[in-house]
């Protein structure tokens, strides 16, 4: 149920294959052999590709982004939902002061039947709307911090492995592989069971199980970009490793990572909710998952207690994925340049 790999939307290049090394293939099309070797410099008698001349300079980043958003109302909807959720989460303490876990009314008030509690109350008489509002903050906080941490670890390890290659890569790749083989959610359950569940430990645990995906992607990107001529040029100009990694390669490797990041936030929210649903979340805060978990017993009579917070999760995650799609369209050159 939880995303095992958050980058499924990019087509995965065919597995390592024995592409003949002697033929003129663009470096990025050469699937990874298990040991990194510098690709022999082969002279490609490359020659003008029949291309249609572009009329004038291509629209630049911001302009293209705007155009994409205008073409894609779904992305706009996603953005709106997300901003709304963020605002609700941010201002929940002001909008719904008081502990969302406090009992405020009769239990089992159905949504819509009491104006004071528009979304009803749960089995203990806690206000669902207040819970959902406060839960938004928790979900987004966990989602963002887990993603940030996962990105830092993943990009760091992936970049080093991909850029330096050799035994560094061999060791780090093995580490990535180990963490990828451990079934994600089982591992997550173990981690949370060990640590005392809190928003912080949940975020760390989720980062620990998601970084390998980022690392793999970053490694692949760095590997292919470091073989590009402009990186060769930087090396031939005497640039240091740090400058090459940060200033030359990273900007080009970033687009797919940004797309991944938005999807990672989504999957972190899903993971957090699943953990909380199972009672492994932070017991001191209200979370969408834990609301569903506590409503589960009353599924037969008061299914709205599960339905409503679940809907909030779906909406938020959907919004993030819509944004991820739009980012992919804007940032992934393949999706718009090959169309002729």
């Amino acid at each position: 149920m939880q995303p095992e790999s958050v980058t499924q939307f990019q087509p995965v290049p065919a597995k390592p294959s024995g592409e003949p090394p002697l033929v003129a293939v663009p470096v990025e099309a050469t699937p990874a052999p298990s040991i990194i070797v510098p690709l022999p410099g082969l002279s490609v008698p490359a020659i003008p590709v029949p291309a249609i001349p572009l009329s004038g300079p291509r629209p630049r980043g911001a302009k293209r982004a705007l155009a994409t958003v205008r073409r894609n109302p779904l992305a706009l909807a996603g953005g709106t939902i997300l901003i709304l959720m963020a605002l609700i989460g941010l201002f929940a303490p002001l909008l719904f002061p008081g502990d969302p876990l406090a009992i405020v009314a009769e239990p089992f008030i159905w949504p819509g039947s009491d104006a004071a509690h528009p979304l009803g109350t749960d089995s203990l008489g806690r206000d669902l709307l207040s819970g959902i509002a406060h839960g938004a903050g928790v979900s987004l906080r966990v989602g963002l911090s887990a993603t940030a941490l996962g990105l830092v670890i993943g990009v760091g390890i992936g970049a080093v492995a991909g850029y330096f290659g050799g035994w560094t890569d061999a060791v780090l790749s093995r580490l990535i592989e180990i963490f990828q083989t451990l079934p994600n959610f089982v591992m997550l359950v173990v981690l949370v069971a060990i640590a005392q569940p809190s928003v912080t430990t949940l975020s760390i645990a989720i980062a620990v199980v998601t970084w390998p995906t980022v690392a793999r992607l970053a490694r692949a990107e760095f590997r292919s970009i470091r073989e590009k001529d402009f990186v060769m040029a930087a090396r031939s100009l005497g640039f240091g490793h740090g400058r090459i990694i940060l200033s030359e390669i990273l900007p080009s490797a970033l687009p797919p990572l940004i797309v991944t990041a938005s999807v990672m936030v989504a999957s972190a929210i899903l993971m957090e909710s699943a953990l909380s649903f199972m009672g492994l979340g932070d017991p001191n805060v209200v979370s969408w998952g834990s609301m569903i978990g506590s409503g589960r017993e009353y599924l037969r009579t008061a299914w709205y207690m599960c339905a409503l917070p679940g809907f909030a999760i779906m909406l938020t995650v959907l919004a993030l994925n819509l944004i991820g799609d739009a980012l992919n369209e804007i940032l992934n050159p393949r999706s718009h340049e090959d169309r002729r």
Partner: protein
Amino acid sequence: MNGPIVQPRVPAVPLLAVEDLRIGFGAHQPVSGVGFDVREGETLAIVGESGSGKSLTALSIMGLLPSSARIAPGSSIRFEGREISALSVKDARALRGGSIGMIFQEPMTCLNPVMTIGDQVAEALRQHQPLTRKAAKARAVELLDLVRIPDPHRRVADYPHQLSGGMRQRVMIAIAVACGPRLLIADEPTTALDVTIQAQVLDLIDRLRRELSMAVLLITHDLGVVAQWADRVVVMYAGRKVEQGEPDPLFARPLHPYTQGLLTASPRLDDNFHYSDGPLNEIPGSISSVAGQVGCAFAPRCAHACTACRETIPVLHHLTDGRQVACPVLITEEHRVAAFHR
């Protein structure tokens, strides 16, 4: 009166006749009014740099243009006298791979990586001929032998990645000529190949042209290839034909400033000109500055350009020896007379 009349042998219709071909992508028209014909058994070369529209022209004959491309009304492509655009889907398919074969620039990516080369050749055969699987396989081996792939019985089961670039291009040729086409379109067939392999492949194409009595439409950017292998040459620039003629007179005495520029800009293997002797002749600017411009597309780069060139698109002048040139400036009476007297 009733005695036998000896008719002068004039080919009734050319094998392929392209007239006023215009291909557009939205407002952009990378091919704008190209016409030429290919006669039975000849090699016609279309030469041009990137952006000249030569490859699009070739693709349009095969009906392989990208879906966003539109052929403008009034354009005409006739094969054996039949208008290609008027053909039914089925007839058009019969034409592709049946009467017209095509090979492309990149032998690396043009073959399906997960099918054996034998299957890929056999597939072309079975599409157009009622052959059993076994017969098609046997014929595929013969075809591989025809294109000089050593040990075809063994190679037939190979996958494309097991072959070198030159061998893959031979397989592409085998596929293209599988059904004995009347016309072979070769779109930059040797650009991705090494020069010694290029010679072999061009040699092979020309030998097959004679053996299978087909015509060849050769698309290339390489003037040397054109000079060596073509019977007639069409020079394209920015979507238009600027000059046409037989290679010897064309290269000996180019009439269009662009053709002249190309010939003088390239160092020639046979002449002793060295960088220490002086710089190469340059064509200033680049082709990409063409968009949205009225008049002759070459005018901004042309040393001879006059006001008229920048205002109207020059018409194609037909000279009597079959040469054509789309430049009013350099056709003086002298050229005309020279042309008449040839």
